[in-house]
């Protein structure tokens, strides 16, 4: 493994992991835009991820795709075996496991350990080298149970029944996880959603997820503002305070994101309600996971690299921050 301009490069198999520039051979951990991109010659990913990439137009007709379900071993060439283990991040998200000459390297992509009803749970894969992200690698990030956050939203709807709760969520993963958890918490009204969330929600449904009744906001008469009072509207985060939100009666901007834990961040986003909903591992889970893999070496790709590197070294684990250029800016999803 080495780091090249395009990202991680597996030398014997001649392929990149989550490259951000078009390459000949790419292994893709999951469908978020900071991991999956367009223009590759060959792509290896889970079948779900390939479907997501197709939905987002990341694969062209000439792209060759190989869908590998979790656990299925595949010869990548050059003596390298590749298989995917679930990462618990979003539908189809995977850790890419590379085996070569008795050595095992796991590129975890993005992952989380908190339960998520919309994707397979994280699987610990013992390895020699573990490559991890560090998005929330500070002791201040201790993600609360999702049920608590959803209860916060329900409480707000009880206190302010006349307001339209507009929840900003990423289209892939966050949106579906929030909807599913709300259903499990007993929310029975239809969800009103922004058009940008439609296709990926349908894709989740094609994999057997059930979100109950939902309807596109654009299909509802503009004059019917009161329809949304006391209901939940879902849209991409940028829309909560934008022109789009003016069509609702008394909108209450809500953001669901791991960053909402930090008050100043929530205020910055002009969220009146911040739901701490993270698709990434929090501080304790990052440390626990690195420990559980038994890896003697941990490479840290992006996020709060310093803190994680320091804490792992203190535990006697050889850790190294890689400071991948370009990833830091895009680490939104």
């Amino acid at each position, binding site marked *: 493994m080495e780091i090249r301009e395009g990202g991680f490069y597996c030398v014997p198999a001649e392929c990149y992991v989550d490259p951000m520039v078009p390459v000949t051979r790419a292994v893709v951990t999951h469908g978020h835009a900071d991991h999956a991109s367009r223009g590759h010659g060959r792509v290896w990913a889970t079948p779900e991820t390939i479907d997501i990439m197709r939905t987002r137009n990341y694969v062209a007709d000439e792209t060759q795709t190989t869908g590998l379900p979790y656990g299925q071993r595949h010869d990548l060439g050059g003596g390298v075996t590749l298989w995917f283990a679930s990462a618990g991040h979003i539908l189809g998200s995977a850790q890419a496991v590379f085996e070569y000459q008795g050595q095992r390297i796991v590129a975890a992509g993005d992952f989380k350990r908190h339960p998520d009803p919309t994707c397979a749970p994280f699987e610990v894969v013992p390895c020699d080298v573990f490559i991890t992200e560090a998005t929330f690698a*500070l*002791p*201040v*990030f201790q993600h609360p149970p999702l049920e608590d956050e959803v209860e916060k939203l329900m409480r*707000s709807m009880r206190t302010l029944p006349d307001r339209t709760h507009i929840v900003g969520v990423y289209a892939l993963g966050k949106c579906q996880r929030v909807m599913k958890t709300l259903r499990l918490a007993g929310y029975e009204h239809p969800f009103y959603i922004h058009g940008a969330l439609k296709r990926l929600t349908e894709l989740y449904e094609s994999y057997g997820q059930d979100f109950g009744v939902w309807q596109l906001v654009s299909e509802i008469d503009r004059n019917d503002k009161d329809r949304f009072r006391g209901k939940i509207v879902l849209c991409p985060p940028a829309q909560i305070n934008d022109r789009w939100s003016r069509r609702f009666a008394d909108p209450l901007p809500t953001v669901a994101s791991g960053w909402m834990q*930090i*008050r100043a961040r929530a*205020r910055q986003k002009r969220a009146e309600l*911040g739901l701490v909903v993270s698709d990434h591992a929090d501080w304790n889970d990052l440390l626990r996971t690195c420990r559980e893999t038994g890896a003697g070496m941990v490479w840290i790709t992006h996020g709060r690299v310093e*803190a994680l590197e320091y804490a792992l070294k203190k535990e006697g684990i050889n850790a190294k921050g890689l400071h991948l250029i370009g990833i830091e800016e895009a680490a939104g999803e």
Partner: protein
Amino acid sequence: MSFAAFADLLDDLYFTNSTLAKEAILSDYLRRTPDPDRGWALAAIGGTLSFDLFKRNLVKTLMEERMDPYLFQLSRHYVGELSETVALAWPQSSEPVRLNRLPDLHEVIDEFTRRDKPGIRAYLVTLLDNMSPPQRWALLKLGTRGLRIGMSARTVKKTLANMAGVDVGVLEKLWHGITPPYTSLFAWIDGNAEMPDISNVLTYSPVMLSHPIDEAADLDRLSPETHHAEWKWDGIRVQVAGMNGEARIYSRTGDDISHSFPDLAATVNWDAVIDGELLVRPDGQIGSFNDLQQRLGKKKPSGALMKRLPAHLIAYDIISENGVSFRDQTLDARRKTLEAFIAERHPDHYTISEILEWTTVDDLRGLRQEAADSEGLKEGLMVKRRDTPYVSGRPKHAWYKWKRDPFLLDAVLMYAQRGTGKRSSYYSDYTFGLWANVEGEAKLLPIGKAYFGFTDEELKQLDSWIRNHKVARYGPVQEVDKELVFEVAFDSAHESPRHKSGYALRFPRISRIRWDKPAHEADRLEIMDTLIGK
């Protein structure tokens, strides 16, 4: 009601933007929460708690004992603030004491107040171990009285007034006469009792304030028949109140500063409320503000200090006497009462503010020049309309202040930066701003920077204030709570498109630190137009 409900309330208020919604949230909480919890919550939000439950330093010490210092530092740096860092990163005790339920808000307050030092420590740890991050945040902010949730005292009073169905003015008067946990107030709001009777309670009465004179527009309004001129003394504006043998001296913001001036308080053997300027009188002469400063903030001044710098009041106005309020009377009528009142007081302690002779505006200019030549004793002139009642707040065209040169501004400290050389460990470079209307909201816009004008002692005080009021960090620049007012002096100002505020100051320096002045009373950006003669 459990502490959890209080923490929920703070979170809801914190994240709500509109004032109306904040009022709705607060009144909803106050309606459904029993006494005394709601009263303590009100005190926390209204900033009327008079004691810390625990010290900030204890919180820091606990964290340093439980967490790797480097990770703590990284976390704090990232979050930008101590309480929130602790709330989020609190490491559970290895064998935590588990509580079956969180105590009520008043139980928390009672426990902390009755415990000794080690007891306070143990209780704080137990609570933090049993709380969620937002609850910990609420506890830490409550305990160290650092609660800032963007709700002004005025909004709090308005909420209560609406609940009681009365004008906010009623609450203004009541507010300083009642104390936490406000059971009498809520009994009245609930309709179970009469309005709390504060006629027998010695309280601060909201004061009347002045507008800076607009030379272009206001001078034409003045005539000796309609307006009085008085010196504007450079001391501190106070209110001296006496009732039933008790005495209080209040700052203009309502803080009780009697303990700093026991010599003046001891002379109060009357029932009245007098508005005036507090100064000291070394060698029988009115002293400068610097002289006075030696007595400000001294909790227990020594006999020697009081002898060297005895306190003195120059009386401006009388608000009430023997239970009769004069607020509705004209200034002329109040002045007669005041003259009679002061005539019976000892001139060592009380004098009446002199009514200055003038006939033309040029006379006033001359007097103002005289003030400018008083070596700082007099700040300028006060010009007051003779037929106005005593209205709390800042009524228009009633009282004008006409300050002497140089140009002075009351600006709010916004950012601080470390100095260089000898000052490299101190925050010694200050950026300050004025209030402006930005898209319908009062916002501070930076107007200038100053590095000098304060003593070494003041530098230390400022440095420690800044360290206790950090908000966020931008590289070397530390943003602070917008709470501290500087009186900034400068030679001239000009328009500058490079500055966000549109102005640049020439030779700005800190002429005084206004520890006594609330930030919202700092100057507005519009004053610059007047200053540069626009």
